[in-house]
């Protein structure tokens, strides 16, 4: 009973905050500010048991073989599974990462590896991936290859993707992951998970830490 009431109060407070956050009137007073700190929580989930980096050898946007573990060893690495014929979440996620990355120093940008693995390899050829990623950030590594291999790689980091299939109109329906996994340059382990709710600001705040393998 107590707990429930408290939860309701917290929700109310959060709601009030949401409202005030949108308005231009800056009337935040003491208690609201306190709640503000609680609500601006970490976007990242820090994993108690980090993931091993997926053992994927795929084809990059130049058509060359790319061994994920070998190429990204010792580097801060962000991995996302998506597809280019995706109007909403895939480009949003990748653009969020790309915009946040630009806030890093040039050296850190060059150190960071952002890897986009297609979940729709039939349509996402190396050329198609390359063209799409060029519109987002040419430094992003785009990988394509055998779907079963990609699916297994995704599954190894807790991401479920289904094979593309045709709907009744003959249109291809693909699935994307909703998470971005960050891998530490110190351990090469996937230690942070971001949901598709993570914003540019979240990544901007966290990337400098990720580059160092620290918790945000």
């Amino acid at each position, binding site marked *: 009973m107590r707990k429930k009431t408290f939860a309701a109060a917290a929700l109310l407070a959060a709601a009030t905050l949401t409202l005030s956050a949108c308005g231009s009137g800056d009337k935040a007073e003491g208690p609201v500010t306190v709640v503000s700190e609680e609500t601006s929580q970490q976007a990242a989930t820090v994993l108690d048991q980090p993931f091993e980096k997926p053992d994927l050898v795929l084809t990059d946007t130049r058509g060359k073989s790319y061994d994920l573990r070998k190429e990204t060893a010792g580097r801060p690495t962000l991995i996302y599974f998506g597809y280019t014929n995706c*109007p909403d979440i895939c480009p949003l996620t990748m653009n969020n990462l790309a915009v946040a990355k630009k806030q890093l120093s040039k050296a850190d940008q060059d150190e960071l590896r952002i890897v986009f693995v297609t979940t729709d390899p039939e349509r996402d050829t190396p050329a198609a991936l390359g063209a799409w990623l060029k519109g987002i950030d040419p430094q992003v590594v785009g990988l394509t290859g055998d779907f079963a291999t990609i699916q297994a790689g995704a599954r190894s980091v807790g991401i479920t993707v289904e094979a593309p299939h045709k709907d009744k109109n003959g249109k291809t329906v693909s699935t994307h992951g909703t998470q971005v996994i960050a891998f530490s340059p110190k351990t090469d382990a996937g230690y942070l998970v971001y949901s598709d709710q993570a914003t540019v600001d979240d990544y901007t705040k966290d990337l400098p830490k990720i580059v160092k393998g620290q918790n945000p």
Partner: protein
Amino acid sequence: MRRPGTAAAMAAGMVFGALTLAGCGGPDSGASGSSGTSGASGSSGAELSVSSAYMPQPVSASMAAGFLTIANTGGAKDELTSVTSDIAGSVTVHETVGTSMQEVTSLDVPAHGRLVFESGGNHLMFEKLKHRPTQGQKVAVVLHFAESGPVTVEIPVKSATYNPKTGH
């Protein structure tokens, strides 16, 4: 003992919902003003208005997404049956099911309710665009309904990372 708690939780949920509705439309969502309401329906029918429209600047001209909210203050439901735009070879209506998108033929706009298109949920999918819309431009679309007359919306193109919750 359970009842008061549940009621409190529900009340809180309702307040939260109401505020989300008030949302961050604000002065930034240019489409709300330019869309107008559909005057074609009768007094007892659906009364539709569109707000919070935006298109994130797409990666290329081959595909873009559009988001908006259709409010119905009338006492009868309506259905969004199709969307057209001069700029796109096709505009289709999609709902997100899990992590895949499914095209649907129509979506209800409930009486005294709303049909919301938002990132991660329902969206309009523009394909084969004549050119790549860029931030600052507007994309005109016409929403077609089962009952009400068509509603024209000028959807402002926002940045690729635009977040309606923060307004930037």
